[in-house]
């Protein structure tokens, strides 16, 4: 019973991190700051939510498959972020200093 409660709390924390990721992608004006912030906050939200789901489910094939998804995500998420950033950089995207517009 207590593990279910902790798992649900973890899921809510994960949702909070994801909301921060969406907020940052809408808020910042510079492309590079968006890439850097979003990749991290979103990964943390993803991991936290999956850990919450694992804790709720206990030890079963469900949890093992979730562990497979975690390993897979840790390998592929940085590669896709990197390829987007590299594609923008190779096409001559410069850092805009308009973050401080005031």
């Amino acid at each position, binding site marked *: 019973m207590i593990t279910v409660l902790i798992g649900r709390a973890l899921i809510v924390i994960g949702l909070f*991190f994801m909301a*921060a990721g969406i*907020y*940052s992608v809408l*808020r*910042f004006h*510079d492309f*590079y*700051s968006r*890439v*850097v*912030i979003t*990749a*991290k*906050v979103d*990964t*943390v*939200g993803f*991991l936290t939510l999956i850990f919450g789901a694992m804790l709720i489910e206990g030890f079963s*094939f469900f949890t*093992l*498959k979730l562990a*497979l998804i975690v*390993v897979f995500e*840790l*390998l592929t*998420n*940085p*590669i896709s*972020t*990197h390829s987007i*950033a*590299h594609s923008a*950089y*190779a096409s001559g995207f410069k*850092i805009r200093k308009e*973050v401080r517009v005031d």
Partner: protein
Amino acid sequence: MKHLLHYAKMMAVFAVVWIILEEQVSLATAAVGALIGLATMIATDMYVLRGDYRETYPFGFRVGVKYVFALIVQIYIAGVQALYRVLTGGLHVGIVDIHTTLENEFHIALLANSITLTPGTVTLDRDGKTLKVIWIDCVTTDPDEAGPLIKQNFEQLISGGKP
């Protein structure tokens, strides 16, 4: 002989993954998984890789587990720091070059992955042993000063304890 041992280890890993996907623990499932793993490795050796499978991916199982745990801890530190930056909005983005001492291609790729996931940095480009990195809190553009701040201890972890 060592070649065969490495193949056997990788086949065991593939069998475990196959059992998880099939959701039934039996000898037949494990055998099918191991055979599919063997076929995949042979096909990769013949058509995709230029070199040998074992030399291209030299990565021990124990090192891998230790690396994943260290990575998860670093990801959480990074996430909390990034959250702080999102809420306060103090950004100072810059691009720096750093040098690495790792030799193997696969190890350099792993280092670039770790840099992308750890606090405030994303790898942009690579030229030999020099990595180009976006840094969110750019205090210095000197490669020798920025290197240790960005890489932390991942080089030792990836190469398996040896500095």
